[in-house]
């Protein structure tokens, strides 16, 4: 996914004074259309200017402009829609990356004042608007024109992708301010609403917010970090793709789901993805939005609406993507398990940004319920380890806890053998250090299902002049959960991507560290390093 590295041709200048590495707090606009070249504002702290602009994203290049805080971003016509990462570097170090949304729609930037209806900013065509609720009480108002029968989709990306500390609310209203529709939480804390106009005319779209952490203030919240991207479109908007995974090394066809999708965009061929690729981006040139599907080394199936009486047969292991379209409905699947076979069965939806609150039950051949799963680890999605009490067929029935259904009630069911495994995380996606002072990178190891192998953990792909220790993580003791890699430099080096890798000596087992709590997962975020 991360195909290119765009390095601005700005040389690092020597400075007599040590300063903090640059910090990027936000981008405005935070979304750019395919084929566009925009001058965006990089909000943050920069000891010097110009800086190097580093981009992880195919078809996207960027360079600092003369004006401090301004960066020119160029998105190729054929650049894939999705999320690219932008960070800056100077001689002191690297900033953390900020997401930049690449979309099929043209970009627009909010203009104040736009709180009142009379000042509403006109959005003449489907666009993705980058804005900011800059102060407490701020309301951003946009004006759109709809023909009778047209469906407007308004979708806010703020808390989830941009990590804005806001809980946004969207309203569609008449020009006089009478609310016609409102959305609060649809994708996590971010709102999304559709409104079909019964009459032609102008309509208002309002954005306002409360703080992500609820308080007792009866008032709208705002601040410099309350950034958002608002998609306003009467065209197609991509929301989901079935099945919800891609099978490694196999081409497949996806059924795209969303609003206003043209017929030609309902099915999308997906080229084979390598097993080493954690995820693939899904987008369509004719619709707004993009998705990221994990790549799994198991069959990816689409649910066919099996019932308990006529369940859908599935192999083991497998993932199944489905959508509940009828009230109090569920989908049933039948699988064969050996006696004592341990399977991890998961139904995911809520964490993926959909409203479905999954639960499932497992029935044996006689129809007796042998297992049930609802919330797991205090999260809405359901998961359990099922140990088959006897060899034979079992049925798993997946549904919504509340029996609800609808366009966005999609889920991903995964049945896979329980195998000892481990996951590695690091706390930052960018590391910079002085060449004369070694760098320690703490690596957290999450050992699951009895994973007791000793690991060798090191950094790979380092630029010339950098070397890393190989740390052992024993099955037990302190090193079982965390090790600290030590990196040394023979001198200053340019920013470069690298990987933190764990291996089991003598075995074909390898894992790469990811950023802890990365909201963009399963997108693999590259790690960067430099020495000064």
């Amino acid at each position: 996914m991360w195909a290119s590295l765009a390095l601005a041709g700005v040389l690092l200048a020597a400075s007599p004074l040590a300063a903090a590495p640059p910090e990027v707090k936000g981008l405005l606009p935070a979304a750019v259309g395919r084929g566009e070249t925009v001058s965006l504002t990089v909000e943050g702290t920069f000891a010097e200017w110009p800086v190097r602009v580093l981009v992880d994203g195919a078809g996207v290049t960027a360079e600092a402009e003369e004006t401090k805080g301004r960066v020119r971003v160029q998105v190729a016509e054929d650049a894939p829609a999705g999320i690219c990462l932008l960070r800056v570097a100077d001689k002191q170090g690297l900033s953390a990356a900020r997401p930049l949304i690449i979309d099929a729609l043209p970009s627009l930037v909010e203009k104040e004042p736009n709180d009142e209806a009379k000042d509403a900013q006109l959005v003449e065509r489907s666009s993705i608007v980058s804005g900011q609720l800059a102060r407490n009480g701020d309301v951003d108002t946009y004006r759109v024109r709809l023909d009778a029968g047209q469906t407007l989709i308004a979708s806010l990306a703020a808390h989830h992708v941009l990590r804005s500390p806001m809980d946004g609310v969207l309203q569609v209203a008449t020009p006089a301010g009478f609310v016609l529709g409102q959305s609060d939480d649809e994708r996590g804390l971010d709102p999304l609403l559709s409104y079909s106009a019964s009459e032609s005319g102008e309509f208002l779209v309002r954005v306002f917010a409360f703080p992500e952490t609820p308080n007792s203030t009866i008032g709208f919240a705002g601040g410099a970090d309350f950034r958002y991207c608002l998609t306003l479109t009467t065209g197609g908007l991509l929301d989901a793709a079935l099945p919800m995974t891609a099978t490694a090394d196999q081409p497949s066809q996806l059924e795209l789901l969303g609003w206003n999708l043209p017929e030609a965009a309902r099915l999308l061929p997906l080229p084979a993805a390598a097993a080493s690729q954690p995820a693939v981006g899904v987008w369509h040139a004719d619709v707004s939005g993009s998705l990221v599907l994990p790549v799994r080394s198991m069959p990816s199936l689409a649910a066919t609406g099996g019932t308990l009486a006529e369940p859908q047969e599935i192999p083991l292991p497998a993932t199944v993507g489905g959508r509940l379209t009828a009230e109090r409905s569920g989908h049933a699947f039948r699988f064969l398990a050996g006696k004592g076979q341990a399977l991890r069965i998961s139904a995911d939806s809520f964490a993926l940004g959909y409203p479905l609150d999954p639960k499932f039950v497992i029935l044996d051949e006689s129809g007796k319920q042998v297992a049930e799963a609802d919330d797991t680890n205090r999260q809405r999605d359901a998961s359990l380890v099922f140990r088959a009490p006897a060899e034979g067929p079992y049925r798993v029935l997946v549904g919504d806890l509340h029996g609800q259904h609808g366009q966005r009630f999609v889920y991903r069911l995964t049945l896979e053998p329980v195998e000892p495994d481990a996951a590695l995380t690091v706390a930052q996606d960018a590391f910079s250090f002085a060449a004369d002072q070694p760098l320690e990178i703490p690596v957290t190891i999450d050992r699951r299902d009895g994973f007791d192998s000793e690991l060798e953990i090191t950094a790979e792909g380092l630029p010339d002049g950098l070397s890393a220790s190989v740390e052992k993580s024993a099955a037990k003791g302190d090193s079982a959960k965390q090790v600290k890699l030590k990196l040394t430099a023979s001198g200053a080096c340019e920013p470069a991507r690298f990987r933190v890798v764990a291996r089991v000596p003598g075995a074909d087992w390898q894992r790469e560290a990811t950023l802890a709590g990365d909201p963009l997962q399963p997108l693999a975020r590259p790690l960067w390093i430099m020495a000064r």
Partner: protein
Amino acid sequence: MVAAHLRHWLLVAAGSIAVLAALNCPAVVAQEGASPAEPAVSFELDVLPILTARGCNMGACHGKARGQNGFKLSLLGFDPEFDYSALTQQARGRRVFPAAPQHSLLLRKATGQVPHGGGRRLAEDGDDYATILRWIETGATRRIEGEPTLVRVEVAPTERRLRPGESQPLVVTAFYTDGSQRDVTGRSGFQSNESAVVAVNDQGVIQAGPIPGEAAIMVRYMSQIAVCHVSIPLEGEVPEAVYAELPRNNFVDDLVWAKLQSLGITPSPAADDARFLRRAHLDIIGRLPTPDEVRGFLADPAANKREQLVDRLLDRPEYADHWANKWADLLRPNPYRVGIKAVLNYDHWIRDSFRRNQPYDQFVRELVTAEGSTWRNGAATLFRDRREPEELATLVSQLFLGIRLECAKCHHHPFEKWSQEDFYSFAGYFARVGRKGTGLSPPISGGEEIVLTAKSGSVRHPLTGEQLAARPLFGTARDAAENEDPRRPLADWITAEDNPYFSQVIVNRVWAELMGRGLVDPIDDLRLTNPPSNGPLLEALAAEFRRQGCDLKQLIRTIATSHVYALSSEPNPRNVADNRNHSRHYRTRLRAEVLLDAISDITGVPESFSAMPPDSRANQIWTHRVSSLFLDTFGRPDPNQDPPCERTGEATVTQTLHLMNAPQLHAKVTSDKGRAAALASSDLPVDEIAEELYLRIYGRLPDDEEREVVRQIFADPDTTRRRATEDVMWALLNTAEFVFQD
């Protein structure tokens, strides 16, 4: 002495009544082993009615929650088991003393032989004393073998028209499971709901007062209730032709005229077009007509322009906010209790229902069975706010059935048939409301909570501890299927076609909003002992509401297009005292939000509210916590008060002073950006400024006298054109014609 309690016994055999010679009759129920001449005394049928009739178990005496001086009886004898235990087992059994019955504390206290705070309640030579004594002498048993139970009571007559000053004795008859009946008039309680119109004494004699009107006389014997409806028509004859010639737009008019005719009341004439226009605007969309709308309506020659107006108003976007705001009072909780986000979403859910004109039965069904996140499904917030089955039972029964069950939570309802078992069985429908997520943590309570169907849950009778199966208050409801939320069969039962309470309480609520007073008042208190002022009309409206698919807009249309709705509020000599039968329009003060929005529209200076987008109206505010001195002054509910909150439309001195002196109001009137400033700086002649102000504020043109007054104000050499405009605007805002809907 023959048992006095037998004097009133009647026996019923095969449908014919055989009145026995009371003094010589054998015991109705003979206790095994007892002499035929010594009839057994029933605790439940003989003793308890005496305690009730003598006031021993009233709320002020031993019937109150904590009893009196250590002796507690169930309120009005509604719980015989408890009372029997209290008399025979508690206090080490000294209240009844079978070894020396005359020395039983029960008798010695009641007769004043030992000090008794309640005074002397029984005479030693009286029948009641003899009955209780005999009961103790024969073993003070709880039940007699084969003892019947009380089924119902009837009062005769059930309806009566009286002339002023006339009286009428009532006869109360109790009916039992074995087919027997007795005259229990002497041991019944009586109460009038309009004692100034019709009074009733302890002996059950009703007495018409001097003023015409109606009253319901409630008769209570033990746990049973009966009602006698009494009317006192206005004296003097009204020719039938007067009623026959009254305009009739729909069945509402037929039924109101019929009621007025029965009382000899004649209706006021129809209101003029301007009043009707203002009334319909304020009632249906909660805002004043603009001058252009007034001029257009007055000039419209169409015969059906009033119906057309009602239809147009029902299509306006203001309709949803105005009517949703009324429901918000009933449902929307304090955000400091349940969280800001939960309330925001609840408010949105209510408003969205009205925007979509969701059929009312679906609205209720969605609310009663709400599941999911309080952050996504606003209706689920009801179950975040009300957490116990008992709380939900009282709220749901009151709002959607007009049945007030609160009393039955602690004891048998004193004015109704509801027992504690009825209450807790009904509450059982909410026993499996489960929750996950973050519960309440005031004063922020900001967490997300998910309402779900729990796998188990039950409600127990607070006294017996018995686990009660969910049961409707009356009629039958299907059982919940396996794994089905019991709230679903409850919603089916509540909204069922044959549940009269459901449709009657909502049509009564809407009627009250439009007509100034409910057919039943209070509007959510439907019971036998609080009868509607026009029962046939209530039933007809409910039937029409059902026929129209529980469509609230159609209901409003039906009422607002009736001739009755369009009556003038000016009384005539034959309806001046009527305040129940809608013989004229009843004026009401504008709701706080409507009044504030009207002032903003009139002055041209919008109000700004926290937590609301600019351009928002007071009718759109999502919580009463949004601060507004004006709204508080004009009676919006206290944000700390738990819903449902019914507003009172009373006018207060504070409101008058606020309109006269509030700096915010003054600022609106005198704003440089306001309407007064714009009118003053225009080149409009004074007469047209006067017209503009009268049209905006009163929805009518000024008459000649009013025009002259305005001219004089403008002609004052000590004033300016701007100040004169502001003075006239201020003066009109401070009149009843503006503040009241007429």
